[in-house]
């Protein structure tokens, strides 16, 4: 941009050179100025001017393109952000105040911050570790190739793959299949995950907290009604429910399915076709402490013997109803951003690894060898020599990734399901949604894009400075 005055000021320059044509012989530009007015014919100066002119001419197409494709859109966006949705009414800074007032946009801003902090750090770290490790393995190239492969996959395709991998249903989502598999290997699933007690028929509580009866005394028999068990979920060996006869010194009863298929049956009463629920754990509780425990038989009956006189409560603990472990809710409101970042890592790890690997290959070997000779162990070498020497490369990778992360869009858009879209949004998706995805408020959208630009600028400036330094070195 700073070349522009040169091209526009061409007439003036020409006049100047006319004036400079005069007496005087070959002197430097400085002396030419001293001789201003009379001006000496100065071939060297003229050559310099011509060269500048030529340079400007060559730069012109690039400048025009830059102006049309970068400068003009930026200026347009800035101006557009000062107008309302229709673009007809000047609203000043209203769009910007709206931006900080709108909770959805604030959420996007917060998410973008998380992204910028977490993703580049993780990626640079991962890349560094992998680069150092792959340097030492035998099949380094093959290994690097495999890690680099995801770079060849478009974000859209990667998004679709990860959307599937993160599915909640263990039958569809591979991650939850693993989580559930591991979990179930350690915890036994409960026998009746869907069962609930029939309300108002002697049992109080919740499936998650277990159920308990009122006070009962040994020598009595009770029927504990449950519902919500599908006919197919009742074990095959279940028999017709039967309330056992009461026995002195024992608490007995039956745990049964209080639902007659096809008719419903009388709530709270053991009807003819109702089955017992075998395998339920039942406890006798006294003063808040379980004193006896048993499991129900095929007809749902149970009997707790050897109880001292007094009052007890019968408890059907929550373990009977614990819902099957459903795995992690990857795409729920709280985990969706980390989940999308995970997909991003998958795609970009190869990039940072290869770049850092290249830097690693260019490290002076003698320093490393010297350190080894001096008896440094691998960890010390890594921390004290490799990382400091690699710092310039690491910074470039880091800053490039920061800029890259700012514009992440497709992954977020594809992976986040509708209900949590807002929780997953980053500035770029929010900007698009506000401008084109239904809202059609391009005023606010432009304001968001300007904010995005302002946030990227520091990273850009930093990177360009580094490049300059690198060039002059």
């Amino acid at each position, binding site marked *: 941009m700073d070349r522009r005055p040169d091209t526009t000021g061409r007439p003036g320059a020409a006049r100047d050179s006319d004036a400079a044509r005069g007496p005087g012989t070959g002197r430097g530009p400085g002396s030419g100025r001293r001789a201003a007015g009379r001006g000496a014919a100065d071939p060297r100066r003229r050559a310099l001017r011509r060269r500048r002119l030529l340079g400007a001419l060559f730069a012109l197409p690039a400048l025009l393109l830059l102006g049309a494709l970068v400068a003009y859109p930026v200026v347009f966006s800035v101006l557009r952000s000062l107008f309302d*949705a229709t673009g007809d009414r000047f609203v000043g800074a209203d769009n910007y105040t709206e931006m900080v007032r709108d909770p*959805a946009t604030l959420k996007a801003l917060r998410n973008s911050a998380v992204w910028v902090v977490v993703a580049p750090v993780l990626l640079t770290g991962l890349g560094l570790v992998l680069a150092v490790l792959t340097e030492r393995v035998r099949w380094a190239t093959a290994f690097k190739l495999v890690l680099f492969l995801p770079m060849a996959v478009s974000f*859209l395709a990667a998004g*679709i793959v990860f*959307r*599937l991998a993160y599915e*909640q*249903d263990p039958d569809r989502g591979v991650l939850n299949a693993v989580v559930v598999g591991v979990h179930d290997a350690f915890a036994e699933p409960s026998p009746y995950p*869907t069962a*609930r007690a*029939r309300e108002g028929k002697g049992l109080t509580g919740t499936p998650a907290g277990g159920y308990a009866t009122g006070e009962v005394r040994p020598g009595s028999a009770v029927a504990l009604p449950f*519902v*919500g*068990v*599908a*006919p197919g*979920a009742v074990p095959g060996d279940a028999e017709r429910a039967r309330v056992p006869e009461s026995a002195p010194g024992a608490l007995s009863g039956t745990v049964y399915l*209080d*639902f*007659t*298929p*096809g*008719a*419903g049956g009388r709530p709270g009463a053991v009807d003819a076709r109702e089955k017992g629920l075998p395998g339920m754990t039942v406890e006798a509780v006294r003063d808040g402490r379980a004193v006896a425990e048993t499991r129900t038989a095929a007809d749902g009956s149970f009997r707790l013997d050897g109880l001292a006189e007094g009052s007890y409560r019968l408890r059907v603990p929550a373990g009977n109803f614990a819902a099957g472990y459903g795995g992690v*809710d990857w*795409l*729920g409101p709280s985990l969706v951003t980390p989940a999308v970042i995970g997909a991003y890592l998958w795609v970009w790890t190869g990039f940072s690894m290869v770049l850092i690997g290249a830097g690693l290959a260019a490290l002076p070997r003698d320093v490393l060898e010297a350190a080894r000779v001096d008896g440094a162990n691998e960890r010390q070498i890594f921390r004290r020599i490799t990382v400091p020497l690699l710092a310039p490369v690491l910074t470039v990778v880091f800053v490039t990734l920061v800029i890259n992360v700012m514009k992440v869009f497709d992954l977020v858009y*594809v992976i*986040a*399901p*509708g*209900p*949590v*879209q*807002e929780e997953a*949004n980053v500035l770029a998706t929010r900007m698009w*949604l506000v401008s084109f*995805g*239904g*809202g*059609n*408020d391009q005023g606010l959208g432009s304001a968001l894009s300007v904010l995005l630009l302002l946030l990227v600028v520091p990273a850009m400036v930093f990177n360009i400075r580094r490049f300059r330094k690198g060039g002059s070195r």
Partner: protein
Amino acid sequence: MRRPSLTTLRAAGALSATLALALTATACGDGGGGAKSGGELAGTTVTVAGVWTGSEQKNFKKVLDAFSAKTGAKTVFVPSGDNVSTFVGSKIEGGNAPDVVLVPQVGVLAQFAKAGWLKPLSEKAATTAGGNLAPVWKNYGTVGGTFYGLYFKAAHKSTVWYAPDALEQAGVTEPKSWDELLAAGRTLADSGRPAFAVAGEDGWTLTDWFENVYLSQAGPEKYDLLARHELKWTDPSVVTALTTLAEVFEDERLVAGGAAEALRTDFPGSVEKVFGPEPKAGMVYEGDFVGGVAKDEYGKKPGEDAKFFPFPAVGGGKAPVVSGGDAAVVLKDAENAEAGMRFLEFLATPEAAEVWAGAGGFLSPNKDVRPEAYADDTARATAASLVAAGDSVRFDMSDQAPAAFGGTKGAGEWKLLQDFLRDPSDPRRTAAALEAAAAKAYGN
């Protein structure tokens, strides 16, 4: 927002929708019907654009063929992709406007009319339509006093679908009122099969739930006011409707798997939960198209192992009939607008509707369509219910709203009702949030 077409649903999977979209966009138009030599319109070509793909497109081409056979005109169907307004706008600008467009949203029809793109219906078409459509359909096709849009295809969105064996197992019969519905649902849950599969991942199913409750509870007048946003969403009637809806949403027995699972279930998934190989719920509420999915995806026979009952009346109101539909319009800038108008005149006749009715997957708002013309009993029953509702039919409210409010994934009404499904404890707060979003989108 228009519901995904049946083909898209058939492609199932949340993601394939994206792909299908891309494919639709690249699919190009092909010939609908060959010209018959002779006939009054021989030598002219009528170009018809619509969102239909797959079997819907195939069946609509049968209608085009019938028109060709009758008049000798050549017909061409051009798929417009999901965004009709963008498609038509670019075609008009490019000087290549189709003659007839089938518009799936009331809002888009109004937008076209206001832009001055539409030709009013010819007297003949208007008279035919006036005779066999309930006035409410005529009103939805009218903008600023001029009759532009002819409703040809309708959807019935007040049907609750159920697996007959589930209700039988639980010993309940088709409920006739909201309270009976809840009671039946709880009995169903007691029998071991939760009542409803709710497709909370798709916001539009939730807006349909709300619209049915609201239309029945608050009545058609308030419904119309709310649809135009002349009534605020903070109105007590909205709060009451949300409270009623919360009776379902907050009850684990009524929502299969609870709200968390419902929010992970998309529309095809909710149908699978009722009619799939491993049923997890007894009923699913959505439009007449549920029957089609159950049939195509899970081999159920509508009317036998996939039945429906009308969405019951809530409180003291009448049973709601919420509907959607596609209206045919003729573009002013079209090359053969005259022939296009002749096509609309044809569409207004029961004859045209019966062609598609016989092929299935179609409901006509036309009351002169003979019941025998429909392919099966279920379609006959839904069509009868739609026609019988007459003027109390109401167009899907979210389809009448600006897209930012009623038709955007993860925003507006969709998102707020999803939040409400997650936590239905405070209807008043949800109503306030809806009002804020509506005020922004409608700009009034």
